[in-house]
């Protein structure tokens, strides 16, 4: 862990065309200050890997509205009409992935697995172009791992070494994405001394976290 930095300084690390995993479920548990800094930097051609497209003005929806995004891999975009319009116009390529498959593909990427075998999607459009593998008499789809250049994580508390804890339904994709980005930037609600987060309550060990964002307003 390399210490705490401003969202602006963190955004400077991220170039045009980068792939980003961004935590959140309908913008709950999304790193909003980090996203604001990316929008302000006027990045282009980003790939987003995220659960959903949130809504205009919230979470990853702000990057989509800003024209910063070329490709989205997500499970749901239905609450963001701008995303739907950009997909139809061809401005954004969109790969829709069942939510449970999406999180497992990210987990596979982060945990060094060659993919996952899931029954979800068999016999549907999701099956198209994928290998089917039979194991012990049952059929599964082979789904490939996902990784990203950066994982942008929202957490509840961080301590000085980057250990993270999460709040209620703001966990969602954050703990899993923390393993699958080459560079992991965490935006905690607050930073506390080591020991305030008990070891058993640490969901993301600090060894995974490269940068923390400083507190809001600093």
């Amino acid at each position, binding site marked *: 862990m390399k210490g705490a930095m401003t969202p602006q300084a963190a955004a400077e690390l991220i170039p045009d065309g980068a792939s980003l995993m961004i935590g959140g479920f*309908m913008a709950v*548990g999304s790193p909003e200050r980090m996203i604001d800094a990316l929008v302000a930097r006027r990045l282009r051609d980003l790939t987003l890997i995220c659960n959903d497209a949130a809504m205009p003005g919230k979470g990853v929806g702000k990057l989509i509205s800003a024209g910063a995004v070329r490709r989205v891999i997500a499970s749901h975009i239905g609450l963001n009409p701008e995303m739907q319009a950009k997909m139809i116009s061809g401005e954004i390529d969109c790969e*829709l992935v069942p*939510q*449970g498959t999406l*999180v497992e593909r990210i987990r596979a990427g982060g945990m060094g697995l060659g993919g996952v075998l899931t029954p979800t999607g*068999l016999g549907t459009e999701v099956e198209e172009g994928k290998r089917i593998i039979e194991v012990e008499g049952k059929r599964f789809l082979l789904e490939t791992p996902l990784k990203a250049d950066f994982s942008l994580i929202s957490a509840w508390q961080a301590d000085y070494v980057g250990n993270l804890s999460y*709040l209620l*339904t703001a966990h*969602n994709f954050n703990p899993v994405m923390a393993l699958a980005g080459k560079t992991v930037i965490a935006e905690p609600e607050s930073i506390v001394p080591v020991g305030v987060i008990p070891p058993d309550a640490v969901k993301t060990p600090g060894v995974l976290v490269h940068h923390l964002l400083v507190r809001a307003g600093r």
Partner: protein
Amino acid sequence: MDAKELIARRVAREIRAGMLVNLGIGLPSLVANYVPQSLGVFFQAENGVIGLGARPPEGMENLGLTDAGGGFVSAVPGAASIDSAMSFGLIRGGHLDMTVLGGLQVDEAGRLANWKVPGKMVPGMGGAMDLVTGAARVVVAMQHSARGESKVVKSCDLPLTSLRRVDLVVTELAALKPTEEGLVLLERAPGVSLKEIRDATEADLLIPGEVPEMELA
């Protein structure tokens, strides 16, 4: 009583003590209103909570505690918060006793289509494919028709959610049980005749000698 309330009250009768249940957003979420707290049922929201509770008092909402539709909720005693991998592990791994979902079409093979209308509505499947594939029981709660067209069809022409045969379909006219032989007309809604059900249904129904009226929670 409107159609949605009737459907929700019939589906509520499927829920047994101690179950872990996932309710979809929209119509299915109404089912919780008719399940007595004394049953000790845990409702899961796939965004990451087991033990979903009612909306908190005004001003006490927490930005980090919502249901899968983004609405503010509370949590019941014994609740647990989980990440998305655990949440879908519960769903896909067969640990979820029941899911209740809305539907666009159900066909004679008991297959559900509920995530896409090509060229019109492409919101994404969200968690629906995992829920239908993995839950121990799948109950579809939907209105019988949309814009004058039956949603209970011979064969789905909309993209399927799963090949899985769902376990029960409840509409404001009937309760239908998909079986290997076809769709069995299990119950009629109160005051609805067999003819009304047949006239409103594109699919062929298997109709037993006696079709009782449904009981509501």
